[in-house]
C-alpha cells in the first residue's frame, strides 16, 4: 500500500479539522475582540502568530477561519452528493431514455455557470453570506457528482451480479441502491475529497471578493482581502491565511490521491 500521499495528507487535514473543532470550545483570544492598542504585534508568547490591524489575535482568527472554510466546503460537497448522486444513478438506470437525456442536459446547463457566477447571481439577489456561498458551491458540485456517478454506475450495470439481481426480480431502484451504490462509493469518496478542496478554494475566493462569510465571522478569504492594503507594511497578515489555505487544500488533494490508491488498487497511479 502506498502511504506516501495518504499519511501527510491525512495529517494536514486532521490538523485543520482539529483546529476548527477546538475553536468551537476554545480559542486563545476572542476573535471579535478589537484591541487597537495591540495591533500589528509580531508573534510572541501571548499572540502566537501576532495580531491584525484591529489588534485581533491571528491564531484565533485562523482557527475560526478553518471552521468557516471547512463548514462551507463540507456542506457544499454534501449538497452536491445528495442531489448529484441520485440524479446520476437515475440517469444510468434509464440510459438512453428521455430521463437520462433530460438529467444530463440539465447538468450541462448548470455546468455553464462557474461557481463564481452562481454566487454573483445569488448575492445580487439575496446579499452576500456564508449560506449563499454554500448554495453557490453546492449547486456547482451537483453536475460533477451526477456525471461521475452516472459514468461509474454505467460500468457496474454491465456486471454479471447486476444481471443476476435483475433475474432475481429486483427493480432498477433496488439494484441502484443495493448493488450499484456500494460499488461506486469509493469513487465518490475520492471525488468528495477533491470537491472538498475545490470548495475550500472557492469559499476563500468568494470571501475574498466579499461574497462569502460576513464580518464579524472570520474567514481566510476575508483575512486575505483585509491584508491587501497592508501588504507593503505588514506582509505576514497576507502570508499566514494564504499558507493555511494552501496547506489545507494540499492536504485534501494528497488525502484524495492516497485514498484512491488505498481504496481501489486498480486505480493506483502507475503513471
Amino acid at each position, binding site marked *: 500500500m502506498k502511504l506516501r500521499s495518504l499519511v501527510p495528507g491525512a495529517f494536514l487535514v486532521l490538523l485543520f479539522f482539529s483546529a476548527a473543532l477546538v475553536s468551537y470550545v476554545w480559542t486563545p483570544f476572542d476573535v471579535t475582540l478589537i484591541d487597537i492598542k495591540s495591533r500589528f504585534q509580531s508573534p510572541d508568547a501571548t499572540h502566537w502568530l501576532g495580531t491584525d490591524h484591529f489588534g485581533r489575535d491571528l491564531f484565533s482568527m485562523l482557527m475560526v477561519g478553518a471552521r468557516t472554510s471547512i463548514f462551507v466546503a463540507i456542506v457544499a460537497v454534501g449538497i452536491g452528493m445528495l442531489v448529484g448522486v441520485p440524479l446520476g444513478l437515475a440517469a444510468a438506470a434509464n440510459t438512453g431514455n428521455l430521463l437520462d437525456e433530460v438529467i444530463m*442536459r440539465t447538468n*450541462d*446547463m448548470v*455546468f*455553464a*455557470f*462557474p461557481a*463564481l*457566477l452562481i454566487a*454573483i*447571481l*445569488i*448575492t*445580487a*439577489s439575496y446579499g452576500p453570506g456564508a449560506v449563499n456561498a454554500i448554495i453557490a458551491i453546492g449547486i456547482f458540485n451537483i453536475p460533477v457528482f451526477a456525471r461521475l456517478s452516472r459514468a461509474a454506475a454505467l460500468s457496474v450495470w454491465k456486471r454479471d451480479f447486476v444481471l443476476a439481481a435483475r433475474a432475481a426480480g429486483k427493480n432498477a431502484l433496488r439494484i441502484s441502491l443495493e448493488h450499484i451504490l456500494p460499488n461506486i462509493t469509493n469513487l465518490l469518496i475520492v471525488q468528495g475529497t477533491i470537491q472538498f*478542496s475545490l470548495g475550500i*478554494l472557492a469559499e*476563500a*475566493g468568494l470571501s*475574498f*471578493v*466579499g461574497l462569502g462569510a460576513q464580518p464579524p465571522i472570520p474567514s481566510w478569504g476575508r483575512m*486575505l482581502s483585509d*491584508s*491587501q492594503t497592508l*501588504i*507593503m507594511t505588514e*506582509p505576514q497578515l*497576507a502570508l499566514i491565511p*494564504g499558507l493555511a*489555505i*494552501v*496547506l489545507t*487544500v*494540499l492536504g485534501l*488533494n*494528497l488525502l484524495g490521491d492516497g485514498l484512491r490508491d488505498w481504496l481501489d488498487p486498480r486505480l493506483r497511479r502507475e*503513471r
Partner: protein
Amino acid sequence: MLHYIFKRTLILLATLIVASLVVFVSLEIVPGDPASYMLGLNAQEDTVAALRAELGLDKPKIARYFSWVSGLVTGDFGTSYTYRTPVADMVQDRMWVSLPLAIYALALSTLIAFPAGVYAASRRGGAGDTTVMGLTQLGVAIPNFWFAMLLVLLFAIKLRWFSAGGFPGWDAGFFQAMKSLTLPAIALALPQASILTRVMRSSLLDVLNEDFMRTARAKGLTRRQALWKHALRNAMIPVLTIMGLQFSFLLAGAIIIENVFYLPGLGRLIFQSIASRDLIVVESVVMLLVLAVVLVTFLVDLAYAWVDPRLRGTR
C-alpha cells in the same frame, strides 16, 4: 458529423435560452427597486415612477425578458441604470482588458505546461518527474488571488519591476499595456498550468505505451525523435480539450484577479454594478460569460468529435 453538429447546436441554443431565463429570473426577484435606489431615500413617488417608466421597469416582466433577450441577440444590451450609457459600450470597453488577460494567461499556461509535461513524461518515475509533479500539486493548491498578492509583494513592492495594479489603456502603447497585464496573467496561469502539465504528462504516457510508438522505435528512431514526431501529436487531443475548457474558466477567474490588480475589466464592472444595483449590467455580463463558457464547450465538443468519430454517437 452533420447530424452531430445539428444536435449539439440545438443543445447549445436550449442551454442559452434556459440560462437566460435563470439569469433574468434570479435578478428579477431581487428585493428593492433600482429606480428608488438610484434616486435615494428622499425621492418623490412621481419622480421614481417617471424614472421607472424611463428605464422600462414599469413594463410586465415577460415583456422585459423578451426585450432583454432580443436586445442581447442584436447587440443592444440596454442602458446602464447608474451610468446612463449603453451597456454594450461599457462591456466592449471592459472586454478589451478581460479578453487579452484571459488569452495572455492561456498562452503563459501553455508555454509552461507543454515543456514541463513533456519533461516529466520523458523522465517518468525519476527525480525530474517527481519534482514537476510535486510543483503541480502545489500549483493547484495555491489560490490564484493569493499568488497574485505574493507577486505584487515581490515584483511590484520589493523589486519594483511592475506596477502593483491599474491599467494604462491600450493607448499608452502595447508594451505598457501588456506589462500591466503580466502579473495578473501569471497569477491566473499558475493553477491552469499545473492542471495542463498533469494532463500533458498523463496523455503522453498513454501514447508512449501504444504499439505505433514501439514500431517507431523499431524503425530506428531515437526515443526523443519518436516523442517529438509521433507521441506529441497524438497526445494533443485531451490537452486541447482541457485548454478549451480552461479558457472559459480563465474568463471567470479573471473576475477575482481583476479586483486584486484594480484592472478595469468585466470582473470589476460586475462588482461595481452589484454594489450600485445596476442589475441590467450584471445580467448582461453574467450572460456574456455564460455564453463564452457554453460556446467554448460547444467548439471543444465539435473539435473532439471531428478528430475522434467514435464520440459522435455517444451524446
